[in-house]
């Protein structure tokens, strides 16, 4: 404790330790058990996806017809489907499909949606009205149905699924970003930037974007879960990836016919979908609480 002197301006007690931003973030984020569980699950699936050829015991498309519709055995951990394909291998490869689609769609939709949203929010009322009307119209359709319609009209296939899901996701980002920009726009540092003559693009890139980052990161993580789920629904309904490729949603659908005798055919991929979505949601929750608890009510 410092010696107190009457003419000094210091206080006798030391200032409390500044809890650093990163330490606080880590404490809240990693502190929650569910977040840790989520991270473990995603890492697990990530490993499955990347090392699929090494982990999967069988070729996911190889029809071992003699072993068709068998229950869990030593050779086939989770059994086989109607044409003898090993369920476990299909789930492993399915992880690859789901994660890949999830990441691509979220990234693509974020770039497009955020750009649209920033432009709409920043560049005046006419532009705003045009863009946001268009977004409103897109949002008149539930995201899954919108993606479903598009995928159905375009046909099966990876590329079409990605397009459909991206279109479904863009309005959400656009709206979010527009809202962020509209509120951030009023801040003094934007005014200051304009006062010294900075161009709009520079302001958007240097100021608005970094300040929207916490919200954006949280939303993107949660959208990963939503996208994986949407892709699963699309394949469940039959407009997903082409048949031979392993996709969890279509596996669930295929398994429906044999629900009474071999429930595992539907349950296993269903559980995989659910756990992946759960993990993404938990991570998203943790990020939100750690980055800015004020968002709790909004997100």
């Amino acid at each position, binding site marked *: 404790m410092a010696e107190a002197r009457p003419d000094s301006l210091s206080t006798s007690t030391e200032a409390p330790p500044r809890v650093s931003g990163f330490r606080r973030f880590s404490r809240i984020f990693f502190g929650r058990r569910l977040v840790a569980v989520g991270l473990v699950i995603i890492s697990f699936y990530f490993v499955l996806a990347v090392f699929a050829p090494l982990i999967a015991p069988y070729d996911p498309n190889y029809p071992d017809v003699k072993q068709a519709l068998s229950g869990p055995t030593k050779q086939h951990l989770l059994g086989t489907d109607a044409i003898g394909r090993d369920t476990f291998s299909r789930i492993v490869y399915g992880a690859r499909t789901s994660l890949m689609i999830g990441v691509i769609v979220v990234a693509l939709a974020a770039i497009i949606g955020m750009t649209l949203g920033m432009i709409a929010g920043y560049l005046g009322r006419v532009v705003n009205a045009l863009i946001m*009307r*268009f977004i*409103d*119209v*897109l*949002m*008149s*359709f*539930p*995201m*899954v*149905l919108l993606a*479903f*319609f*598009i995928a*159905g*009209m*375009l*046909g099966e296939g990876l590329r079409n699924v990605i397009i459909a899901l991206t279109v479904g996701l863009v309005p959400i980002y656009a709206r979010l970003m527009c809202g962020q920009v509209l509120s951030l726009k009023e801040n003094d540092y934007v005014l200051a930037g304009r006062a010294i003559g900075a161009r709009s693009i520079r302001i958007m890139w240097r100021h608005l974007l970094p300040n929207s980052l916490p919200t954006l990161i949280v939303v993107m993580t949660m959208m990963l*879960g939503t996208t994986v*789920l949407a892709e*699963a*629904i699309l394949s*469940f*309904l*039959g*407009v997903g990836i082409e048949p031979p490729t392993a996709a969890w949603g279509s596996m*669930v659908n295929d398994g*429906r016919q044999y*629900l*009474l005798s071999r*429930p595992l055919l*539907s*349950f296993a991929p*269903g*559980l995989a*979908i*659910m756990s992946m*979505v*759960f993990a993404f*949601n938990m991570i998203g929750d943790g990020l939100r609480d750690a980055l800015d608890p004020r968002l*709790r*009510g909004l997100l």
Partner: protein
Amino acid sequence: MLTFVTRRVVLAIITLFLASVLVFLAVRWLPGDPILMLVTKNTYQEINEEYEQELRRIHGLDKPVVVQYFNWLGGIFKGDLGDSILSQRAVSEEIQRRFPISLYVGGLAFLVGHILGIPAGVICAIRRGKWLDTTITTMANIGITIPNFLLGIVLMYLLAFKLRWLPIAGFTWPTEDFWLSTKQLIMPVICLAIFPLAGVTRQMRSSMLEVMSQDYIRTAWSKGLRERVIVVRHAVKNGMIPIVTLAGMGVAGIIGGGAVIETVFNINGIGRLAVSAVINQDYPYVQAVALIVATAVILSNLIVDIAYGWIDPRIRYG
């Protein structure tokens, strides 16, 4: 209040109009030629240049796009939505039959999900941290994550196949056979309602916690009111404001989820129709269903906006 409502209604109509344009154009732009599709479905016909032109003329496909659009729009107001490519039957007939079914199932799910969720969330907020809160919150977290089709399949397996308590699938109107109708509806309604129920519970809990820390609640405590009165009279109304938004989104979610659930439980509603129409590329159905969906969503958003104005007096005048 009236100007507020009028403004919102006008905006909704404009959006609906734009949506119809989008639906119309989107279907026109899809790869594939409807005439060829029609013809190849009926493989007995031979493709003949004149016959093709004739078919085009019959279906009005030779006129410019704008005229086609207004023809279609005009048809809608007269109740004519075109004929299915597949079955040649009038689209409107089929929709008339199926729409009430989806409305009934979806409506039940909507009410169960949103209304039950409010007291659930309030209880969680008041008994924060105690076991009731933890239990309900955990269940809500599960409810938010479980895909509704998976829940459907699991329930079907447990309750219909294994335990044989409920019928596997199907739909009956309560007026025809009340008991059977109810038993058939239990699983689909649970599946559709679980997501909004979980969402509303979580949101209500969260917004109640936030409301309870507001200054005006401290004022209410300082008046000596009982906790129950403070919660019900002062807090809930404020906490419900975000629920209105959720309800709006919930309609869209139930419409989307309805398609899947109807497929799983073999319910002949609009959702199931949409799924088969899209897969079969039967575009008159697709157009009609898309338009109905858009109308429902826009309408529910409108109602949400107006409800906001009613609940929160500040919005009415602003």
